[in-house]
């Protein structure tokens, strides 16, 4: 049975294991075609968020700020917001502008929905959909911000459909551009029509071409967003998502689009569940090619099973991701010793319990935690593997525990957007990465260790 804990110090967060709401919301808009984000608040938040996203994806990230100053803070920022919208429209002429708030804007009581409506700016900027999403950073982490934005966007476009279509919605989180390309490949193998939302496969991993345009190509289109309410079903990688935040649930409740909530398709079981869902929705067989890939994955799992059993992992990050990664670890005999998230609420313990007790694992589950707490337990529990984003590099450096990277942000390695983690093929690559890390670690110290332990003259 897992033990649940919070962070060590009550009033002090030491080395945060989370970010704030507008970050998540900005990431959501990155997957909407021809969209821009304007963050209502002072300049810093927006610049920091841009910087964080840019270093992870190595792509130009333009996020505007309403640059609130002392005056705006005291007398209200409506004028700044309206001018900001006009300027963004003038430079970028986007089709969509997501307007987010910050702690500052919310604290001084800015009602962005009201400002946008009352100022008439929306009708002035014809052809641009302005979507307000209140995201006070103090209210929740980027995980919530992401889903709040998804839901707002879906709701903005959803209308009672005249006719039902034959496509499915796939609502995703925590995926890389390469993952989304793999997702498309899988869906094409099933020969089904789909809307992936949000789709960052091109927007955050654009090919080099001559004559760079400040506008990125790709992303979920407006017409795709509009037809979401007409879909035959939604598959949402939102196993951990609180019900109130789920865009899939919204579509189900409002437009009777059945929701299949799935964990991220990482690991054998995770991928199985996803493929089974598609298969069930369309009453179609799982394509031969995918069955073969599954066989290859099994073959590889046997190859590396003993090596993996020596793994004692610390898994941290967003709830959705750590759930999926924990399952992949459990399937392969890598013990999840610490499972941690900086986010406040999630039903992680209950969800994992069955798998955990099957193999008699008793991980420590940390919620609303910081890296200081993770570090302490990682050492105490003699773990030998960290799985999560770059922020674990501190523990890696200090405690010499190797780090396998997944999640956001990754800015101490290159190529985060090209990593593939999902489906049988992605999961297998990821598993190999983990196994090889364990092998390297073992071999590195092997000769010295044996010499020191057993050699006598």
């Amino acid at each position, binding site marked *: 049975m897992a033990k649940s804990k919070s962070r060590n110090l009550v009033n002090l967060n030491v080395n945060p294991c989370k970010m704030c709401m507008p970050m998540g919301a900005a990431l959501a808009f990155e997957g909407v075609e021809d969209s821009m984000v304007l963050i209502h608040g002072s300049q810093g938040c927006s610049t920091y968020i841009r910087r964080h996203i840019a270093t992870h994806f190595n792509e130009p990230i333009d996020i505007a700020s309403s640059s609130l*100053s002392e005056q705006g803070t005291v007398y209200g920022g409506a004028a700044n917001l309206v001018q900001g919208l006009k300027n963004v429209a003038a430079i970028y002429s986007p089709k969509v502008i997501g307007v987010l708030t910050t702690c500052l804007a919310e604290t001084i009581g800015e009602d962005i929905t009201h400002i946008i409506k009352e100022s008439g700016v929306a009708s002035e900027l014809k052809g641009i959909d302005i979507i307000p999403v209140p995201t006070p950073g*103090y209210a929740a982490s980027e995980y919530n911000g992401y889903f709040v934005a998804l839901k707002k966007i879906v709701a903005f476009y959803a209308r009672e459909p005249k006719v039902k279509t034959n496509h499915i919605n796939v609502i995703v989180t925590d995926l890389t551009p390469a993952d989304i390309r793999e997702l498309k490949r899988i869906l094409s193998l099933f020969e089904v029509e789909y809307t992936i939302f949000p789709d960052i496969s091109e927007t955050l991993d654009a090919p080099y071409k001559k004559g760079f345009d400040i506008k990125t190509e790709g992303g979920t289109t407006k017409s795709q967003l509009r037809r979401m309410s007409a879909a035959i079903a939604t598959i949402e990688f939102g196993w951990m998502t609180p019900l109130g935040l789920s865009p899939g649930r919204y579509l189900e409740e409002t437009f009777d689009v059945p929701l299949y909530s799935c964990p991220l398709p990482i690991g054998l079981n995770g991928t199985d569940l996803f493929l089974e869902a598609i298969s069930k929705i369309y009453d179609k067989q799982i394509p031969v090619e995918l069955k073969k890939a599954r066989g290859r994955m099994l073959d590889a799992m046997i190859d590396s099973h003993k090596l993996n059993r020596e793994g004692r992992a610390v898994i941290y990050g967003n709830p959705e991701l750590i759930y999926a990664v924990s399952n992949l670890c459990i399937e392969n005999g890598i013990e999840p010793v610490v499972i941690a998230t900086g986010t406040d609420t999630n039903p992680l313990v209950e969800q994992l319990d069955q798998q955990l007790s099957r193999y008699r694992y008793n991980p420590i589950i940390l919620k609303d935690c910081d890296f200081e707490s993770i570090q302490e337990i990682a050492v105490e529990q003699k773990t030998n593997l960290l799985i999560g984003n770059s922020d674990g590099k501190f523990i890696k450096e200090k405690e010499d525990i190797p780090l396998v990277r997944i999640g956001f942000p990754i800015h101490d390695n290159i190529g985060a957007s090209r990593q593939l983690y999902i489906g049988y093929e992605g999961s297998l690559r990821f598993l190999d990465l983990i196994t090889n890390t364990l092998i390297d670690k073992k071999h590195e110290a092997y000769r010295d260790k044996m010499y020191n332990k057993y050699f006598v003259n």
Partner: protein
Amino acid sequence: MEKNGLLEGRKKFIMHKENEVPITISCDENSLSGAVSQRACVYCGARVVLNPITDAIHLVHGPIGCASYTWDIRGSLSSDSQLYRNSFSTDLREKDIVFGGEKKLASAITEAYAEYHPKVIFVYATCVVGVIGDDIDAVCKNAEKELGIRVLPVKSPGFSGNKRSGYKAGCNAILQLMGETKIVETIPGSINYLGDFNLAAEAWIIKSYLNEMGVKLLTVLTGDSNYESLLQAPRAELNIVQCAGSMTYLAKQMQSAYQIPFDKVRFLGVDETVIALRKIANLLGDTDIIKRTEKLIERKLTEVTEVLKQYRERVQGHKAAIYVGGGFKAIALIKQFNNLGIDTVVIGTQTGDQEEYEMIRSLTKEGTVILDDTNPNELQKFMLEKGADILVGGVKERPLAYKLGLAFIDHNHERKHALSGFEGAINFAKEVDLTVNSPVWDYIN
């Protein structure tokens, strides 16, 4: 907006150099809403100045984001404590915003002290704290009394100005730490070195020169400094200041509080480094020091001149665009490029002042575009117009350069190679060579 793609409100921040016209450019104003400024905020500026103090706890009072995004993003090195590399936050939540965060802050300070026993805690007030009206002065004062350590408030709500105001807030905290008046004796012949954050060991490099010259370096502000070394700083005979943007203010304050005269130097590039070292030697006026300095310069020049010449042959003729934080860095970069046979055709800063822009104008050729607080759109436009093929900038500018197929020089606080002194000049030339002469450019055309 006009056809040339510039926002009306941005025009006064852009200047094309034509020789006779004196400089008129707006600077030190608020960023234009919606224009995607590359600037950060007051808090960021304060953090730049104070972060390198190694044995301090840097406690960010506010919601989590501000602390999360600035955790260990600067490459200041420490010879001792690593405490400064952690990110501490009060992680304010909804209820704290409603009921105030003072209690939480007080408890956070107590917890931090119990766990880490620092001698000094800097408490950064971020935007929200500035609005909900927490009296952080009072909380800090109480904590000082209770714990017997220094707990210093840093007033840095992001909206209350720009990065420059943040530098000032940081400097004020240092002054508070050092005390208001001089109560200790001057150490003859000793100097402080202000405005080096020991990124990639830069302060250590300068210190090695000063050692060889026989100059006693008391304290670096703030690279690799700590509580004890900061308390020593008022005893110096002379302050030398680099990075004028952030530290001249502190130098002036130290002059009036402790009667320490100051002078400005720059260690970016060979020429500036030579001038700086001679200046320091002459200011101290000791003939032995002057002699040793000349010997050092001679030795270093023979070491670097030939190497730089070789680099120059490989990189000359390119055209550079520069977009960096402060004016002082921009100026030094123009000179360094000049020495490598590279003209600067576009140049901008986030926080340069009138004087610096005037200097920039005098150093660049006719037709050069000068920008204050620019954005990606303008950068792209002018780089293409002016035919720049290399950009110097921070991490946010890098992907833009690469998408445009331009070479890029990293000039940020994370870099892993020093740009100061003779070593720095070579690193710079090497980096220019690494990027402009990469085979990759042959394949994109």
